[in-house]
């Protein structure tokens, strides 16, 4: 079998295909689904960005306000340590210095996480309602 034999075999190769309009209609439906998923993920990214912005703002304010409580927490710690331990050794004084900031940081992290969660839900719902109205 040489080149021309194979060329002859394939020259007339014209198999029965399913109707083109059916193929295009099916592809149209699949492309619709792809676009819907694309649109959804774009919307999701937008919602995440907005939630992140809200979280940053809330965390900044919460961090500032909570840092104002550090002097009070400091004195509270001193009182607490003095109440628990009679001798005020230097190793506890480091703990007394750091603990208020640790508490503030933990509180800010917790607030940020909850805020992000809440913002994601609230903004997500708003965007969904807006898109339903638009439809």
């Amino acid at each position, binding site marked *: *079998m040489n080149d021309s034999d194979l060329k002859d075999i*394939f020259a007339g*190769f014209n*198999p*029965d*295909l*399913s109707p083109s309009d059916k*193929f295009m209609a099916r*592809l149209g439906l699949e492309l619709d689904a792809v676009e819907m998923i694309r649109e959804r993920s774009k919307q999701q990214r937008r919602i995440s960005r907005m939630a992140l912005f809200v979280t940053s703002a809330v965390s900044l304010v919460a961090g500032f306000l909570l840092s104002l409580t550090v002097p009070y927490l400091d004195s509270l710690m001193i009182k607490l340590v003095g109440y628990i331990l009679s001798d005020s050794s230097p190793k506890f004084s480091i703990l007394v210095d750091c603990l208020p900031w640790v508490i503030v940081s933990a509180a800010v992290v917790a607030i940020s996480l909850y805020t992000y969660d809440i913002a994601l839900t609230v903004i997500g719902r708003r965007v969904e309602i807006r898109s339903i109205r638009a439809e």
Partner: protein
Amino acid sequence: MERQKFVRYVESTQEMLRRFLTALCCGDRSLADDLAQETYIKAYLSSDGFREDAKFEAWIRRIAYNTFISYKRKLTITADLDEASAVLDEPTDNSYSELYHALAGISDKERTAILLYYMEERSVKEIASILDISSEAVRQQLSRGRQHLKVLMINAQLQ
């Protein structure tokens, strides 16, 4: 790429691609259609980076070939080899059954090279870019594919 433009490209290439995939799937028309759909969806998803209009056909063939290869890989992982070959041995279009059976007897790479060269009349260089192999390797696939096809076609005629 805009959807309208993409659909225009699909309309102009779908018959050629489905013919090619039907031969690659050894006559399994529904499988060829499924792979063609998957090919176009993959192309649409990555069409944003596509700029060269003239090379759409070659690009779509490369995606089709890769889709076919990943389908075959999945098939060999999920089913046993007997089942896998049985799927390809059952052409839904009987008008070329002799040719389909001969094509089913050669390797996927040889079959693709043969189809692109003789059916699609692509150059060795173009086939090399579609299959992502060297021109020399394409020549080897063509030569081996020709030899295998020859034996298989003669056997089919004798039976």
